[in-house]
């Protein structure tokens, strides 16, 4: 009751008033939802959410607090959070603080106490939309709607190169504690640290390079393999990464994850398109078209690959909407997946893909 209020405004003019939590300022972003029931900290620190306002479909967020072990990057990249309830008393041995406090530290606003199911239903029906979180301290809802109208109109997620914003500016090396077996270059389009951890745990010395690193520079370091990471935004804007990938492919083994998959797709001659509301959750079923086997995967993407050239294998398919989930091109030692084999958050069913990649090195 006593809490300050904020309003979530959608570009179609609809709005939802709730409690203002996190940092009390206004924010703009593409409104998306995630259906995972755990893993809010991993999502908050996932650079792929840059430029988006994330609605958690699961109503209870923050139950087990914020742990130093569950960071996917050093900060929160998304623009704002929408939730039904934030836990005021998180209890977990690893927890250092609550989610509200965590958002405040990184200046991220949240609007809480909303009918998030209604919001998810809306996004599902009409697709992702530009949206804003506007503080209501000293403002009426009408004023808030008015003040956000113009900026919402001008907001175009697909035209912003978020990768440049979230990618490292300088290369960084991660070494295994012992038994280094391979050297891998990881192109950071907004990489989740779990990808680095998976590679390092398999004996790879991982050199994480900025997304705009040129192909010949990557090849010059003579890596055993190259990984294109996940990241935010429209893959069609990734011309520089696609160019470097095109240069590398066929010369060393390449593994693409999420945005990396879309970059590899473009490099191999496929196209990408925007999904109505994307795939964001921990329960997306994927079938291996070669073996018939099914996997549950963790996903976070708003675009998908299509028009796959004949010489490239349409390897994996989403069982829900039949969209492409993976490519392979064995002659060029390239494979890529739309989902997150590193999980975090989500099921660990497809971690073996890192083993498959390691075998190619």
């Amino acid at each position, binding site marked *: 009751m006593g809490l300050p209020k904020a309003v979530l405004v959608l570009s179609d003019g609809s709005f939802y008033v709730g409690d203002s939590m996190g940092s009390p300022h206004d924010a703009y972003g593409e409104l998306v939802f995630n259906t995972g029931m755990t893993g809010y900290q991993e999502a908050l620190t996932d650079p792929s959410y840059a430029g988006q306002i994330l609605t958690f479909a699961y109503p209870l967020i923050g139950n087990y607090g914020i742990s130093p072990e569950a960071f996917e990057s050093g900060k929160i990249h998304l623009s704002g959070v929408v939730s039904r309830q934030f836990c005021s008393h998180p*209890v977990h041995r690893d927890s250092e603080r609550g989610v509200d406090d965590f958002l405040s530290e990184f200046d991220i606003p949240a609007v809480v106490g909303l*009918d998030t199911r209604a919001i998810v239903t809306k996004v599902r029906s009409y697709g992702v939309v530009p949206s804003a979180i506007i503080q209501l301290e000293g403002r009426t809802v009408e004023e808030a709607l008015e003040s956000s109208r113009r900026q919402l109109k001008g907001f175009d997620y697909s035209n912003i190169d978020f990768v440049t914003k979230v990618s490292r500016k300088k290369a960084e090396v991660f070494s295994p504690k012992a038994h280094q077996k391979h050297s891998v270059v990881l192109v950071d389009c907004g990489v989740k640290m779990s990808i680095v951890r998976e590679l390092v745990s398999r004996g790879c010395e991982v050199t994480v390079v900025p997304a705009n690193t040129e192909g010949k520079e990557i090849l010059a370091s003579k890596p055993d393999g190259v990984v294109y990471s996940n990241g935010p935004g429209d893959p069609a804007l990734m011309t520089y990464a696609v160019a470097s990938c095109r240069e590398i492919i066929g010369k060393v083994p390449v593994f693409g994850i999420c945005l990396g998959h879309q970059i590899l797709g473009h490099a191999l001659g496929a196209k990408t398109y925007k999904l109505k509301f994307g795939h964001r959750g921990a*329960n997306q079923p994927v079938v291996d078209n070669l073996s018939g086997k*099914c996997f549950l995967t963790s996903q976070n993407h708003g675009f998908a690959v299509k028009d796959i050239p004949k010489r490239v294998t349409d390897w994996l398919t989403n069982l829900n909407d039949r969209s492409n989930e993976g490519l392979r091109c064995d002659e060029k030692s390239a494979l890529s997946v739309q989902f997150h084999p590193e999980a975090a958050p989500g099921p660990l069913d497809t971690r073996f893909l890192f083993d498959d990649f390691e075998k190619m090195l």
Partner: protein
Amino acid sequence: MPKISSVKKVLLLGSGPIVIGQAAEFDYSGSQACRALKEEGIEVVLVNSNPATIQTDLATADRVYIESLDSRTVERIIELEKPDGIIATMAGQTGLNVTVELADCLKRNNVRVLGTTVETIELAEDREKFKELMLKLGEPVPASASCKTLEEMDKFVAKHGLPVMIRADFCLGGLASGIAHTPEEAREVCGAAIKQSGTGLALVEKSLGGMAELEYEVIRDSFDNCVTVCNMENLDPMGIHTGESVVVAPSQTLSDREYHMLRTSAIRIVRGLKVEGACNVQFALDQKTGKYFVVEVNPRASRSSALASKATGYPIARVATKIALGYALSEIENRVTGKSACFEPSLDYVVVKIPRWPFDKLYYSNSIGTQMKSTGETMAIGRTFEEAFGKALRSLEMRVDWRQKTAEMAELPLEKALAPSEMRFNVITKLLFDNKVDVAAISKATGIHEWFIQKIAAIVDAKRALARNEMATAGDAEGVLAARKAGFSERWICEATGRSAVFVRSFSKTHGLNPSFKMVDTCSAEFEAATPYYYSTYESSSDAVARKGNKKKVVILGSGPIRIGQGIEFDYCTVHAVQALREAGFETIVINNNPETVSTDFDISDRLYFEPLKLEDVLAVLAVERENLEGVIVQFGGQTSINLVNGISQNSGAAILGTSTDSVDVASNRKRFKALTETLGTPTVKSGMAFDAEEAVLMAKEVGYPVLMRPSYVLGGRAMHLAFDEAELREKVHESIMASEGNPVIIDHFLEDAVEIDVDMVGDGKDYLIAGIMEQVEEVGVHSGDSAAMLPSRRLSAAALSKIEDYALKLAGALKIVGLCNIQMAAKGDEVYIIEVNPRASRTVPFVSKAIGVPIAKVAALCQVGISLKKQGFSSFPKPLFCAVKAPVFPYSRFPKADYSASSEMKSTGETMAFGRTLDEAYLKAVKASGALPKTGKVLVRECGKWTDEIIAKAKNAGFEVISVDGNASKVASIAGIGLVVDGMIGCAKVDRALCEKVITAKIPIVNSYYGAMALFDAIASCGGYHQLSKADLSIISLNDANAQ
């Protein structure tokens, strides 16, 4: 992949009578399996001794045998029916045990075990083999050993230390199990476990008590694809049986890493076991370190899988059945979203399950632990934990004296107050409200994760805030809304604010504080879904939009959690009503909150509201569905729905279908009923009413001792007592007054040596038909639910029978019965007396329906929407072709310290049914199916009053060696070799409690009625006496033959 095409006929086992640890969940899974099989054009043969099941309907399975589930009987059925396959995993432990015993028979008859195999079952059930597999898979298990003797157990304890967890091998629901903290305790528990175990083995392991308990429901297909449908977190720590725990889904306190660590482990285990179908995996998680242990697996449908299905909307039994037929997960459709069943449901709500215990019936202690004692459970869905928890509590229909009990317990020293008991969460709430203990201390004392205690503290805070709420301004309305969102019922708001219900209702109306309804759709709204499955919450938008169209709607109220006195039979009736009305073109809407049952399968009705069955919740649903609403059916939900009749008619425009509200009142209001019987000239047993003890004494004098006293408007004979004199009356009447909650206590004269009769009938307001006149085997005074019943009757004179028919028709006509009606009478010689009329479904409806081959609940449902008996083609109901008997099943083995003597208080949890060529044979078969046949040829007969000599003579005639002990004599020296105990009859000296416990612990069957003892000995004599019993050629009669009228 194509299904296994060679399979054309499948044998499906049921789980038998409802017992603690095996309840309605197996009718739910079995019925779903039947439908999944029939969709594939497969002929289904079903065996189950429990008539109150949907799976034993000929509309569900093709060939039905209501027969005992012993392996010999099932073997004979296999030889008769020659099925191609059998599914073992839909019938709980009973199904697994029988299938394992039948392994040779199955091979001999070329019956393929479909889905999870016998090898997998044995691997999962054999602790040693299972442990070996876990070690091979690298899964952590606690140190354990199987012990044949106490010495072996001592050795284990010496090596691994205390505390230890001890279980009986191959036993249901933690029977005879416990945690031992001292060497003495260990010897005591271990001794009992060895005795109770089917294999003579006690399983001893290092106790994981105090850790968090988590469960995962995994499905695996034969192509090794795996999904986890749901994970569930027990609020109560390890050491409290999961069936006794409050359970929440999904888990609330696990981090993503922990969630998936356990998920990955669960899948690894299920793959290691090669399960083909569903499997429940239980873990203990030490939340101080993050380390886990595998506790156990159940490679079958279970109580948890039923809960998981209802919690997520994912039909586990259906999918497991398709997998058993050879389908891959990816080939099976998720009919909710039209997507693949190869996915994991995502929830955007919280589910809470709370068990319902029979401590109000089997008093002695309300403590809970490693053994299951609860009879049923209720589930609630909310958008927050607080909301779901509050809704679950109010769905529970707690014992009437819970407030008083809570207050008493809260006064105890903390350790005792917070010891695991039925009332623990009430006590925690009270202690927090009184500021006696803080959250951390409660968490430490109970082992319940602090997160949950914090949530209860939030509920307590909301209550405090309400106490300050003036309920005047819009701001106050926001406060009330906040309380609503924290799960507060109207009644709790009244209590906290001191306002009346009328005031709260009008305030809520003024400020628009109405619940909205959200859909359970398996996917957190990610996809458009077609599930007609809803729950209420307090949010802006509603998914439950009344359907367009001209279809008339009928709302059918269910019966809530299963408890003694209100069992699965009401769910059976509810489902029948839905089926009949759907077929007749109505849109059917069910409100219920029992996750175990068939009625809450969202495939059954057109719409399911998973809600508490309290007036406000029902009214909220009626408000959504008001257009084209024909009315509400209240006859099939037991006392739960009958209690809502007045509230619904006074507060909504909805019509109560069936017998008029006024007639319902006549039947339950003693004064009005007495006046009616006087007008009709139907004799009644002398009776009166009293509000307090002094009135009761006066009334008892007037009606004449002995007297039977009972509260009015109360279910199944609770707090009902017999008194032979004033002293006894004074001793017992207080409890009946308490249970009456302000309503009067009824004092009846008690008829000795009479035969009690149950009459089930159907009326349409003009015509009335008798479906069955059942003779109770037990004497008057024994609760009808605890008595065996015979159809046709055999002790009634022709004159008495004709009076029974005459009175029944007169009463039904006078009350203008529309739908079902049950009349209880007593016959003494040619004289017949009316005991009571219940204008609703009775416990015997499934039994009668199956005996005569007419589903009378369906007929009754149609009568209630105006389709007359004539229109339905009934001018009379057929007579049964065979003799039919039902026999009760008692939960004593779970309550070794309970008193097994007969009383008017119902104690049985379920019943078996059998057909026979004679009543003797049917009786014998029903008793056999209930597991109560003598175990040896030696019976112990204690005092049986004036019947003692006759009973002993009959026992001897049946070939038994009789040990007779005078009830007043000192203790029975030994029960060694005794195969049956005859003791505890009404009106006899009190039972010897020490003997009672010994008999129960030794699993010796008990007969506690004069007529029951005689009927049993006569029946055994009729097939050649005890020594011929095992060779007796008992008939096997299919329901198809029995219903071939």
